[in-house]
């Protein structure tokens, strides 16, 4: 009975891997900027997956969003080690590792906020304190950044 459940979980995990591993690896690579380390994190995420399958595959929830949240959780310790997300010098390596067409069309402020929250795992509260801005303004800028992504997608 338990073995059957585990086998089913493996099959579901494989299906999720086929569909979303590339998307998650793309995100992880943007965060860690190291292919080997990114692969290690991807393996960790999918090893953790069977314990979270019930939540991730729940009807009505976006599977990629749930996987992304799990990945973000797995990267929590790594986020602590990343320096501040600067956007003034695009040649430097603190921005995502591959050319990012979405970030490139954002305004400097949108880019900084989106990068800090999405790729550096910062909370709105911390970012607002760091930038000396109200949280509402940070959220509004995030909304504008998503509008830019929608136009590009």
């Amino acid at each position, binding site marked *: 009975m*338990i*073995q059957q459940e*585990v*086998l089913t*979980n*493996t099959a579901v*995990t*494989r299906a999720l*891997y086929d569909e979303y*591993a*590339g*998307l*998650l*690896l*793309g*995100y992880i*690579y*943007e965060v860690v900027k190291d*292919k080997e380390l*990114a*692969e290690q994190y*991807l*393996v960790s995420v*999918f*090893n953790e997956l*069977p314990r979270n399958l019930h939540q991730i595959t729940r009807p009505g929830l*976006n599977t*990629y*969003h749930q996987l*992304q*949240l799990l990945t*973000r959780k797995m990267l929590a310790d790594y986020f602590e080690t990343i320096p501040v997300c600067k956007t003034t010098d695009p040649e430097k390596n603190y921005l*995502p590792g*591959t050319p*990012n*067409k*979405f970030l490139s069309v954002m305004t400097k402020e949108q880019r900084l906020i*989106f990068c800090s*929250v*999405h790729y550096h795992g*910062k*909370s*709105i*509260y911390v970012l607002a304190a760091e930038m000396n801005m109200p949280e*509402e303004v*940070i*959220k*509004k*800028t*995030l*909304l504008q*950044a*998503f509008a830019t*992504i*929608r136009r*590009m*997608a």
Partner: protein
Amino acid sequence: MKVDIQQYINSGALETYIIGAATPDEEQQVKYLQNQYPEVKYALQQLEDDFEDMARAMAVTPPPGAWNKIESELNNLITRQQTIPDVFNKHQQNNTRQNNGQQYIEVEAESSHMKVHKNWKWVFTAVFILSKVFLICAIYFYLENRQAQQQIQELKQELKVRDKG
């Protein structure tokens, strides 16, 4: 909860939730409002699609060996499940109880090991060394005694021979 829905949608709260930066309270609010208001649900779905589209555009093909590593770990999980003795499984089932639809597992310390203070290490070492010293002494005195007994026997025999002579 009375909320101006359009204002809420335009506040960036949904984007904060999608990106994973919402606080637990904000998450609960989003979940509540999406169940209450179709426009919130629709806006959220749009954002989820946008987020996924962005991820698809940035996707990186995993290396060929990545799945094998994951599968190997999952197979280990199956092996571990198979090697759990039935007695433990039964015990585990007994310790699992239902409560308001949620499962709880009673954790009970059943280790057969005993923890002692580190200072006892020196006491045990001293006892061990003393026991060895006593053992050596016992063997020594036993052999001495046996030799003395033999000498006594020999002397007795000598005396008997002399008496007869």
